[in-house]
């Protein structure tokens, strides 16, 4: 996919003045920052050219809508209604009349310009501090016209980073399992979409059961479980070429795969004779290593971002709990000691937290704890939910939720949801079908 992305950074003008606007993302944000996203201006000739290629009447308006929607779902920004804008987009991009934007209570303003240059899409945008009356950032990109949504995502990432001080997560994708059919005969397919739900694509046909897809660090490969020929095995899929291969040659079920942070290994469970152990396989030299050695169930392994530790799920204490060990399998320590059962530990990309699923008194929770098990925080409670996956900046978790069926056993659904680390901003992530097992990619433009 990255092959198609030829993104050139043409101009970069960092401003010297300190930003007056700041967005605090460490707490639940109950007062999202009012921001005006002026439609990106476009000249008539460019407009017509893009309409021919992309079948969009006004691509400038479309890109600004992508930005607006991103800002809205972040929960940190409140994009203002365009009807209230007084200044025309082209003039605003040259020099905003700050009094006008101040009047509608905008604190930040995004303006920009789209043009058709050598068959390519050229976008420049500016971020303005309305109260201070200053330009905060100006950037321009040139790319193939089909990448127009990604331009919107990249602009959002730049704005988010400038205003929060942390990397964004908008130019990303979600791989997940699309579900259809009755609960007893579910048909499952691998599917991929942009973080905002656009560009949904199915990657398998649904002939065999597939589960738990996870991206590699560059988001070009996916490891997942497939029941191809009724042999549940861990597979590797190259998203661009569509080539799939089975991982290793295990005489039994392999499952719960993830990549190591350097992308060179796959860590997974191998079950044999009623005992599941954690193994790694080096993708280059195919060397297999056994990491755990215990007659209990050891599964759901996840590396720390520095690759030195592994958190995993084990019932060696009698019930499902979360453990941490060194990456060679030594120094196994239980870290979950709260009431209930714990599963699906996932190390955060920042390294300081582990997200998990908890079952207590018939309710399921998504929560986080520090890597020593202290500071447990439950973010959301529901009838059934599990499998959190971190946004690449470690600020948002995506997971799936299933509904209770009625007395006739009907009304089942599975959907993706996201929630901020703060416990605020819980949102349904729209998918064309039912969905489960989401995995968030890294930032694609990094």
């Amino acid at each position, binding site marked *: 996919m990255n092959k198609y992305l030829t993104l050139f950074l043409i101009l970069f003008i960092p401003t010297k003045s300190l930003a007056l606007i700041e967005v605090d993302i460490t707490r639940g944000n109950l007062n999202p920052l009012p921001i005006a996203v002026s439609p990106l201006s476009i000249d008539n000739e460019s407009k017509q050219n893009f309409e021919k290629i992309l079948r969009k009447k006004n691509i400038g308006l479309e890109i600004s809508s992508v930005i607006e929607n991103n800002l809205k779902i972040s929960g940190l920004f409140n994009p203002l209604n365009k009807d209230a804008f007084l200044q025309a987009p082209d003039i605003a991009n040259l020099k905003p009349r700050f009094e006008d934007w101040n009047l509608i209570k905008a604190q930040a303003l995004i303006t920009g310009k789209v043009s058709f240059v050598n068959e390519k899409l050229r976008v420049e945008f500016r971020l303005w501090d309305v109260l201070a009356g200053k330009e905060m950032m100006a950037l321009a990109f040139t790319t193939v016209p089909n990448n127009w949504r990604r331009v919107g995502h990249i602009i959002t990432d730049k704005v988010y980073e400038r205003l929060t001080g942390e990397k964004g997560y908008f130019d990303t994708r979600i791989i997940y399992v699309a579900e259809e059919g*009755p*609960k*007893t*005969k*579910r048909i499952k397919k691998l599917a991929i979409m942009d973080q905002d739900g656009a560009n949904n694509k199915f990657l398998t046909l649904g002939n065999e*059961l597939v*589960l*738990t897809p996870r991206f590699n660090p560059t988001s070009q490969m996916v490891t997942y*479980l497939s029941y191809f020929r*009724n042999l*549940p095995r861990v597979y590797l899929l190259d998203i661009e070429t569509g080539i799939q291969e089975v991982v290793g040659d295990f005489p*039994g*079920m392999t*499952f*719960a795969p993830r990549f190591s942070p350097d992308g060179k290994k796959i860590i997974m*469970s191998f*079950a044999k*004779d*009623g*005992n*599941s152990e954690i193994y790694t396989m080096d993708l280059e030299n195919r060397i297999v290593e056994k990491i755990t050695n215990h007659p209990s*169930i050891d*599964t*759901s392994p996840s590396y720390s971002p520095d690759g030195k530790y592994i958190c995993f*799920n084990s*019932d060696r204490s009698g*019930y*499902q709990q979360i453990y941490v060990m060194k990456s060679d399998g030594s120094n196994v320590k239980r870290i979950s000691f709260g009431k209930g*059962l714990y*599963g*699906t530990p996932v190390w955060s990309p920042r390294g300081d937290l582990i997200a998990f*699923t908890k*079952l207590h008194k*018939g309710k399921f929770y998504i929560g986080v704890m520090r890597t020593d098990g202290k500071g447990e925080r439950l973010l959301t409670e529901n*009838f*059934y939910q*599990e*499998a959190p996956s971190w946004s690449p900046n470690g600020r948002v978790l995506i997971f799936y939720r*299933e509904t*209770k*069926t009625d*007395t006739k*056993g*009907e009304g*089942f659904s599975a959907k993706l949801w996201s929630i901020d680390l703060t416990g605020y901003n819980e949102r349904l992530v729209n998918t064309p079908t039912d969905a489960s*097992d989401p995995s968030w990619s890294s930032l694609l433009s990094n």
Partner: protein
Amino acid sequence: MKKLIIRNIDQGALMKLNKILKNAFLVTLACLALSACATSKKTTGQMQGDVYTGTDTVEYLASGVPDRVFFATNESVLTTASRETLRKQAAWLRKNSDITIVLEGHADERGTREYNLALGERRANAAKDYLMTYGISSDRISVLSYGKERPVDSGSNPLSWSKNRRSVSVKAN
């Protein structure tokens, strides 16, 4: 200082209490074993404790040979009824020595997907081990875990879940 002393006394008492409780626990366990759990587990309709005892979903490999056994939540221990079913399956397999089977292990929907895959494998293997002690060769039995992916009952209630916690012997040839 006062606090410290009190704590010391408490700890001593606690240790004694622990010992008493431990003994009591062992005695209780022994009682339970003797009475075959009859006193501790309620039989309600189609469940004993939370193990399914009904026949709604059961199919038959041959006349009088049920195809599945059921488990308690999070458990892979075979119940008395399960062992009886498996002995019938073993007898049938001994009589039909050309037949091979797949043991399909399942879990209910009240657990995380990956753990349930492991649990299904453990349940199917519990059944496999038992069949092997009754003389069925391991090369006639393969094991396949579906975790919670293939429930037989789509209900979201304890009875439905009990039907789904199962190991099913399926003829493979």
